[in-house]
């Protein structure tokens, strides 16, 4: 009933009339501006689920559903960047999605290519948004022509610093983690480069130390302060050298340790014990982005489906929404953001309250 009303000609005429369009746009701006007044998540991820179901329920072609999904993405990106989100990560295409019909996969690839090519024609506009596009995932699974469009868009926007759009395109999180593990292992299995020849000799230093000890120890008893200054230049002078050599040759243990240090084993590696969770995080595709604050999945499916597993399993708020992705707009997004802000404020209050409680 409401659906038919929504699609009726009168409603469409009303909704697309200039004053209404203008009014709604102003309203959006007001709400986005209001959101900026509170804390804003630095990194949001979206699983854009429900394009096909939307197409099925509205009796349109699947590809058309994906097109509408892209439109929803554009709307949401506008909201995100205007309200101050630094990084948006979207799950555009899973490696598992290659199992879908060839027609649909081809259409999606074509869509990605067209949109990226169009984007590349507007370099100046992109500078104004200040958003850099990055494509995360298995590049070798993508067709060559699509890859070219990707590279062009990525290089064009690489200099933008204000915001980042991560497009996960053939991506699965397990693949990402595997890649991170593999890259770490590759780094650690490369022979460590031998240390460069430094202009200081270890024997010389130890000899100087010994010289200092020899010269200071007897004098310490007599006059600790006044003579120490006068001895310091004499340490570096060559007068003591002959006695030094005799002394060190007598001290066999020191000589031995010197010999071991000067002849290191042929190949040295980085110590595997220095690998930490941080090392793996730095090898993920999202290594230089802030931690994920919010993950939103539409269409009521409550699972992660191999997305951002490493990034979201700690303190990320995960939100599952019932609306389908093409229907997703500011009006669905706003309550999520406000609730996030509300929770963040409560957490801050609690953290602020805790030390006071302890003092009491």
């Amino acid at each position, binding site marked *: 009933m409401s659906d038919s009303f929504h699609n009726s000609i009168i409603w469409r005429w009303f*909704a*697309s009339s200039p004053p209404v*369009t203008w009014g709604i*746009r102003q309203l*959006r701006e*007001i*709400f986005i*501006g*209001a*959101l*900026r007044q*509170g804390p804003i998540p630095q990194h949001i991820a979206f699983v854009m689920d429900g394009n096909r179901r939307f197409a099925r329920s509205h009796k349109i072609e699947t590809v058309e559903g994906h*097109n509408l999904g892209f*439109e929803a993405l554009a*709307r949401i990106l506008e909201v995100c960047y*205007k309200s101050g989100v630094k990084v948006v990560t979207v799950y555009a295409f*899973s490696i*598992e*999605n290659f*199992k879908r019909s060839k027609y649909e996969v081809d259409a999606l690839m074509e869509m990605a290519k067209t949109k990226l090519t*169009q984007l590349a024609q507007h370099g*100046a*506009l992109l*500078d*104004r*948004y*200040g958003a850099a596009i990055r494509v995360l995932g298995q590049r070798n699974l993508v067709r060559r022509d699509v890859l070219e469009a990707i590279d062009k868009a990525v290089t064009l926007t690489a200099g933008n610093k*204000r915001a980042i759009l991560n497009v996960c395109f053939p991506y699965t*999180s*397990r693949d990402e*983690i*595997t890649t991170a*593990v*593999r890259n*770490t*292992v590759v780094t*650690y*299995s490369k022979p460590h480069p031998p240390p460069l020849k430094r202009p200081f000799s270890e024997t010389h230093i130890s000899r100087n130390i010994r010289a200092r000890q020899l010269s200071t120890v007897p004098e310490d008893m007599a006059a600790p302060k006044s003579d120490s200054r006068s001895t310091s230049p004499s340490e570096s002078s060559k007068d003591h050298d002959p006695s030094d050599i005799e002394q060190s040759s007598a001290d066999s243990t020191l000589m031995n340790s010197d010999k071991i240090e000067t002849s290191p084993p042929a190949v040295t590696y980085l110590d*595997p014990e220095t*690998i*930490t*969770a941080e090392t*793996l995080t730095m090898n993920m595709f999202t290594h230089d982005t802030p931690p994920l604050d919010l993950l939103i999945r539409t269409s009521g*499916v*409550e*699972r*992660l*489906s*191999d997305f951002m*597993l*490493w990034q*979201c*399993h*700690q*303190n990320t*708020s*995960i939100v599952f929404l019932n609306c389908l992705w093409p229907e997703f*707009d500011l009006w669905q997004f706003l309550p999520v953001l406000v*609730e996030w802000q*509300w929770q963040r404020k409560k957490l801050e209050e609690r953290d602020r309250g805790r030390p006071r409680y302890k003092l009491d």
Partner: protein
Amino acid sequence: MVAFGPRETTAFRRGTTLDGQPLTAKERERMLKPFLPPTPSTGSPSPAASRLPSKRKPAKKSRRPKSMRSFLTSQFHLLVYTIVHTIFSIWFRFRHAWHAVYYRFFALLYYHHRTPEYIQKDVKNLGSLPGHLSVILELNESDDEQGNAGLEGLVNDVCEISAWCACAGIPLLSVYEKTGILKNCIPQTHRSISETLESYFGVDRKPALSLRAPHLQSFSPPTTPPSISYPSSPTATTATTEPPRITVLLLSATDGRNTMVDLTKTLAEMAQKKALDPADISADLIDIELKEAVSGEPDLLVLFSPRVELKGYPPWQVRLTEIFHVPDNAGVNYQVFVRALHKYAKAQMRFGR
């Protein structure tokens, strides 16, 4: 969608004008102008920005009234922000209260009375049951909310959930608790769970229990063999001939990232000794190793917390796990468990298709 006129919508969808002519890059830019952010850039105006001034009238005026205007706008936004937050905080509190009543009603509707038959009746009509159920529990330091604090409350929760799983016929339960405090007292926990199972089933029908944690010896009574193997199919459990058996697996934050780090260390050592080619590292290899070291993928993950937050749950394993939570819920209770099983039975598995 509504925020665009028909001209923009057509351009957006087809890349053409209203009468079907393909758009040039120039025309597209002209069309985009009103949607662009009002201030070109924060500090340094780029050459691109000065070429394309905002279409809005006020931007063309001099600098002083603009700063005044921006001050007023920000004050106005702050007002809207306050209003929105006031309304929402009333709504959140109302929703919280409503959910509390609603869940109380469910709790009256579904109660197990510590009788396996009631639980079996609750899950009888379900098409599929999870073969591996996982729960995230929390160690409550203060008992201001649920009345079960500390280790005792936690063990109590584990006991109840294990008993429900045993009654429902779920063979494997993994309990995630961030600090790992349960792993330090496995024998005591085992005894508590056994006692709870006894109170549900009676002494003679009591299911065999095996309690284990990754990297620790499986703890099970000498009469039953330790069952670490996973059932091949999720539904092949409710055999009437032999007594049911339940395996409880205790997980903590160290089984997540730290285990993966340990695996990476081992792999790196092997690669240094030339025992492994880094190219051989695949998702399958990691999967097999982690399955043996920690656990397989759970079919259903039940959260008893008010929000969805994984709190360090092993990341590799939650890939396709159905995550069930009830908004604003606090504490472990049976109605959440039953509703999770109902939801799971209805969820369709699509595996990326």
